[in-house]
């Protein structure tokens, strides 16, 4: 990614220089070697802090809800999967497309620091990405990883390396396909469980939730002016999981709210400090929607009505649900 890092930075500087944008939305280095923070750069000088590497996993599209309402034009860097969220936000009129210059950038899969740490790596000083290798330099010496082994789960079932939107694209010469896994594989495992087993699985996962709201805050589909969980009138507003009902239901309600709109960007699971596999809830919905209404990719374009908000006479009858064993 080093080659395109230079190209992106050059492009950003050029955009500042010719005045076509007054801000660039990208990433900068955080406190640690693997912490990358979404950041708005307001001048070419500020771009000194700009970084693009294997840890720039954050989906920047949601920041545009606020940023595209500011004066002037902003350039945004979109990885292929982010471009779906971007389209979805355009479709929902949540971002002002005219105020944005979207640059599609290449991605060879993003790294999962938890997988690296799980291999017993401590005291990381720097991380070097070298083609198919990731070399972690620590106080106790170097540790080498095969890049594929330390990718985020979502990158192992990557939606593809093509952008679905963008004004310009900066792509690597040799593009890497990281897909090794069917993204519904884990959903099928859940479906194969008995209702009791499945309940137990989710009960134990969801009970880990500390209601930090990170999943909601990062989710590009969770973009309401005021979340129902923060709306005192709704009767469900609360900050902490005061009872088991809430810890169970928060995520399920959230999954319902984003159903048909979720692009499976995987940010919810990536940011969860408790490592709850939240993306599985969304993927179950996506799989069901695909099966009931035909394959649908939220954010593939900016016009198509989502299957859950579009009635067609050929749609599956509700009885189909019980035929599928929905009564369980």
């Amino acid at each position, binding site marked *: 990614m080093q080659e395109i890092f230079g190209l992106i930075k050059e492009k950003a500087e050029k955009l500042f220089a010719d005045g076509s944008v007054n801000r660039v939305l990208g990433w900068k280095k955080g406190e640690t070697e693997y912490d990358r923070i979404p950041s708005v750069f307001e001048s070419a000088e500020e771009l000194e802090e700009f970084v693009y590497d294997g840890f720039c996993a954050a989906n920047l599209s949601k920041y545009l809800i606020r940023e595209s*309402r500011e004066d002037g034009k902003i350039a945004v860097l979109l990885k292929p999967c982010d471009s779906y969220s971007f389209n979805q936000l355009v*479709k*929902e*009129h*949540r971002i002002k497309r005219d105020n944005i210059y979207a640059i599609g950038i290449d991605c060879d899969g993003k790294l999962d620091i938890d997988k690296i740490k799980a291999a017993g790596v401590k005291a990381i000083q720097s991380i070097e990405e070298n083609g198919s290798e990731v070399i972690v330099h620590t106080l106790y010496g170097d540790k080498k990883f095969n890049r594929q082994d330390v990718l985020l789960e979502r990158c192992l079932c990557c939606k593809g390396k093509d952008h679905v939107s963008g004004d310009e694209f900066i792509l690597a010469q040799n593009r890497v396909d990281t897909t090794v896994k069917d993204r519904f594989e884990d959903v099928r495992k859940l479906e194969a469980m008995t209702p009791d087993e499945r309940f137990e699985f989710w009960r134990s996962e969801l009970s880990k939730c500390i209601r930090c709201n990170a999943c909601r805050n990062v989710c590009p589909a969770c*973009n*309401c*002016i*005021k*979340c*129902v969980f923060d*709306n005192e*009138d*709704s*009767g469900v507003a609360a900050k902490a999981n005061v009872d088991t009902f809430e810890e169970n239901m928060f995520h399920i309600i959230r999954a319902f*709210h*984003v159903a048909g*709109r979720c692009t499976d960007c995987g940010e919810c699971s990536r940011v969860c400090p408790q490592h709850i596999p939240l993306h599985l809830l969304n993927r179950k919905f996506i799989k069901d929607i695909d099966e009931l209404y035909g394959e649908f990719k939220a954010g593939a374009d900016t016009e198509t*009505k*989502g299957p*859950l*908000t*579009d*009635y067609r*006479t050929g749609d599956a009858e509700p009885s189909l649900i019980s035929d599928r064993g929905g009564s369980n």
Partner: protein
Amino acid sequence: MHRIGVFVCWCGTNIAATVDVKAVAEAARKEPGVVFATDYQYMCSEAGQALIRQAIKDNALTGVVICSCSPRMHEATFRKTVQAAGLNPYMLEIANIREQCSWIHKDIKEGTEKAIILARTAIAKVMLNKPLTAGESAVTKRALVIGGGIAGIQSALDIAEAGYEVDIVEKQPTIGGKMTQIDKTFPTLDCAACILTPKMVDAAQNEKIKIFSYSQVEEVKGFVGSFKAKIRKKARFVDENLCTGCGDCTSKCPSKKNKNEFNLGLDNRPAIYIPFAQAVPKVAVIDAEACIKKKTGKCGLCEKVCSAGAIKYDQQDEIIEREYGAIVVATGFNPIKLDKYDEYAYSQSPDVVTSLELERLMNAAGPTQGTLLRPSDGTHPHTIVFIQCVGSRCDDARGKSYCSKICCMYTAKHAMLIREKYPDTDVHVFYIDVRTPGKNFDEFYRRAVEQYGVDYIKGMVGKVIPHDGKLLVQGSDLISNEQVKIDADMVVLAAAIEPDPTARSVATMLTASIDTNDFFTEAHPKLRPVESPTAGVFLSGVCQGPKDIPETVAQASACAAKVIGLLAKDKLLSNPCVARADESLCSGCSVCQNVCPYGAITYEDREFRIPGPKRSEIRRVAQVNEAVCQGCGACTVACPSGAMDLKGFSTKQIMAEVDAICR
């Protein structure tokens, strides 16, 4: 401060036999906010309503709960009652303790317990009710009739007679429907064409009636009083205004071997044809799939012979948009397909026919010019077996569970006519029951048996076996308890009737409901039989259930009376229970607009104050057009942020109801 009154109805013994009404009133009185509770034998009676009015005045009630029958029955009645006593009519809630309680429980303890919960639920809701005021909407003084059979024609004629415009949309090239194919009609045996064709002509000549033949309704939007329909007028490749119906083209057309739909495929017609001599409009139509010119570009004979210059090979489908105040559904029926009844050899022998095919074989305009001849060899049949209930009253998945109602009578008619015209023919009828209720109907059937000597055999046929040009019919005679074998020349199957296949799509388009057999559902099976539950949509003829011609015509006129009643109004009160968007919560995501079946939601850019140096921002927010919204609530559940709410059925009210049930 709430002052709620609760009124518990006995409904005679309908409720009181299974629910301790006094206990319900007693329990309701203890609910917070309730200041008055009582029970009465018939709350909907004048005395009952007077009791409610008096209690409202005496106790200065702010809200009323009536524990009675379904709100579909008497909500409107009680709204008027509370309004007469000075309350807003929407400060009323009905707890349905009849259909949802007393009628489905046997145990008085259980029933009472549930009735108390239902009362409590309604009390919880009424506490959150707000006074609502109904708006007004205009009425377009024109009706749309979907289907131009006898039902549609009769409804249209009656509506036009009252002075309102009517459009008939018929998918076939001519109006007239199934009745045009029938030879004689029971119980008077007058010829169908003789009584139908004058009506068809009346419809065509009536200046208030516009006929769109060979057309289909593609889309209906709007609501009662103000529907907007898109009608697709299919290209018939003949200019309707120029064609004189002379028939020169049809006799010259070289593509002659096409199944004649009018004679149910028993003979052929040319690619350009007029369905039958009395067709209305009497205009030719080109069957593009059979036309040599349309297929190969060569031929053009019809164009050459047409002195009126009416042939237009390049004619395109036309979309017509029209507005209507009311819609009549008259989509009719078809006999079922008999491919699943192979035991009767329908697909194996041309001499096994359906009753409707027999009508064509006996009709003077039919393929045999009215002489009954066997389709296989054109000889006169001497033994004919009729089999009743083919697919009717059927308990397996092949057929229909219902009685098709018309078969007993038309079979008696067929048997009688055959015996009358061909006395040397033996006629046997296998039946499960003979059902002949109706004026002069049983007398008619008895005449077939007693005067014409038709052999009625109680029992069903197991198998029909074609052999040596004959049909061996094996059946059972349940009265003499023996097996019967008859060597027949022809077998006639009384196929069940089913709603036209378009019924389902029409119902979907109109958001009108249909039952499991695809018959349209009426608003009330006894008291509102010609209205659909969807306001402004009315039902005429067999689309609502099996009917013979007299019943169809009666229902068609009843339906017209309802339409006239609606069109006679200048304004309609609209339902105030409509959606409202909370602008402070709305993100402008368009989800509600996507799901709104009425197109009631638009968006506006509004300025909102926000914290920070910018002080305000422009946001796109949803606006509900209250005149168009029908209060279906689809938007309220689709809205991710809960910005949409339904007046009279707010999320808070519904949650309060749920809480009250769970308490």
